């Protein structure tokens, strides 16, 4: 069965003065798909994501995310997506429960719903012992897992993950990906950036951005075949080095 499209991007462009950060990119992402959004530092990934999550207006082109237009319905997009990045994740001075209540409240969940969701989060991650500890005192890997769960609290159609696993130990990194698989399996669309090329292989499809343009977009398997590469790292090096 063909899944519905959740993200549609058509000739999306962003210019800063004479500099074109994102140059007419186009792609679609389906419901429940894990979409890897790769590129070198400075290739334009962050600028593109900012447009897709409704915090930066495109210079030209169109994009629709979770049923809303990024230019005219930016506020609706923010309510219907989840977002986590390595830089901004949780409030270190709040406990696990308080963070969950805070973000649940922001997304307009009822008190009863927040309570139910918080308990579910704590149970699933096995955090009973630390539920009243300040998040700042927890290991990075735990924080990232909590942060991902918090981004899913309001059952968004799409969740954007910006380098979610940087610096995380290899076992926790894999547990994190199992959480991603589980969310995708339940129908959530995952839009993820990473510098770990083994993680690129975990995606259903991967796009690689070079100097503001999408230079390749396919399944990891097809990309490896097309570029006669053994793994995604080789594909990346071949493309990004030109």
């Amino acid at each position: 069965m063909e899944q519905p499209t959740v993200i549609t991007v058509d000739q999306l462009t962003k210019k800063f003065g004479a500099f074109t950060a994102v140059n007419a990119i186009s792609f679609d992402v389906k419901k429940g798909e894990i979409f890897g959004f790769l590129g070198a530092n400075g290739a334009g990934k962050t600028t593109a994501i900012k447009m897709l999550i409704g915090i930066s207006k495109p210079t030209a082109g169109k994009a629709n995310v979770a049923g809303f237009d990024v230019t005219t319905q930016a506020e609706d997009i923010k309510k219907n997506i989840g977002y986590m990045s390595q830089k901004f994740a949780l409030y270190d001075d709040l406990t696990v429960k308080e963070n969950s209540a805070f973000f649940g409240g922001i997304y307009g969940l009822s008190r009863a719903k927040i309570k139910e969701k918080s308990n579910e989060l704590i149970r699933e991650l096995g955090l009973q012992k630390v539920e009243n500890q300040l998040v700042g005192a927890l290991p990075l890997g735990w924080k990232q897992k909590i942060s991902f769960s918090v981004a899913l609290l309001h059952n968004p159609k799409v969740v954007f993950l910006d380098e979610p696993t940087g610096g995380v130990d290899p076992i926790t990194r894999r547990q994190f990906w199992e959480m991603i698989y589980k969310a995708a399996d339940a129908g959530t669309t995952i839009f993820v950036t990473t510098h770990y090329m083994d993680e690129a292989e975990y995606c259903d499809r991967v796009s690689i951005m070079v100097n503001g343009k999408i230079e390749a977009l396919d399944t990891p398997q097809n990309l490896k075949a097309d570029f006669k590469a053994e793994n995604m790292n080789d594909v990346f090096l071949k493309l990004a080095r030109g």
Partner: protein
Amino acid sequence: MSISVKHISKSFKKVQALQDISLAVGQGELFGLIGPDGAGKTTLFRILTTLLLADRGSASVAGFDVINQYKEIRNSVGYMPGKFSLYHDLTVEENLVFFATIFGTTLEENYALIKEIYVQIEPFKNRRAGKLSGGMKQKLALCCALIHKPKVLFLDEPTTGVDPVSRKEFWEMLKRLQQKGITIMVSTPYMDEAALCDRVGLIQNGRILEIDTPQAIVKHFPATIYNVYAHNMYRLIQVLKTFPTNHSVFPFGAFVHYTDRSPEFNPKELHAYLITAGLRDVTIEKTEPTIEDTFMELAR
């Protein structure tokens, strides 16, 4: 020995950051400290660069004791901390001149050492450091750490958050610095970078798990690893975890790395088990362990 660490321990309040760490790095060696965030890498770097005192144990760098001869160490080492230590309001050139002056030298005196790296950022020498891209900041910070021609170079996570292309270039720069006789101790959370070091120490939760050459470390892996593939990765992981004799199940790129604890393990039985569970396109093949496999096995 260029760096010698003997039974170093360090605690911060309740957290034991380092527990009885011992290691030795030879003259001109490229030594990698590989471990995730919170493993204790930065604490060890700060002790070796005399910015922090250990609770127990002793250490020397470039032949100097970290406590009694800390001033000599500060003149003999270069240190590039994980967070950038550049002055954002100074230009590229001003940063370099500043660091050179502090160490009583000049840009010209040791220009040969940094030339190859500096030429890449020289077109922007009048730009403020705060306005540089991440890659250029990294190159400038490396130049600043090298300007006084250190005997030992400490690089704390220089490639974290850096894309694979820039990471590769950075490691090529390190190799060339090593050829100039500089001892380098570098930390990284990227396991694949371990292969680029002469020797590595795997570190987690303040303990050294193993120290050896990257080649020897993977040889020590105690089990046979199988690359398992099926049409649905998530289902595959779930089902493998229910196989009665499973020892470890870890996704690895396009495959799952599977190890079994039974000496009579037969891949054909596992194959049949996966098919019965509804998985398709199943393949099971032996594969070679990587540093990351070893790290996870030791960290379990």
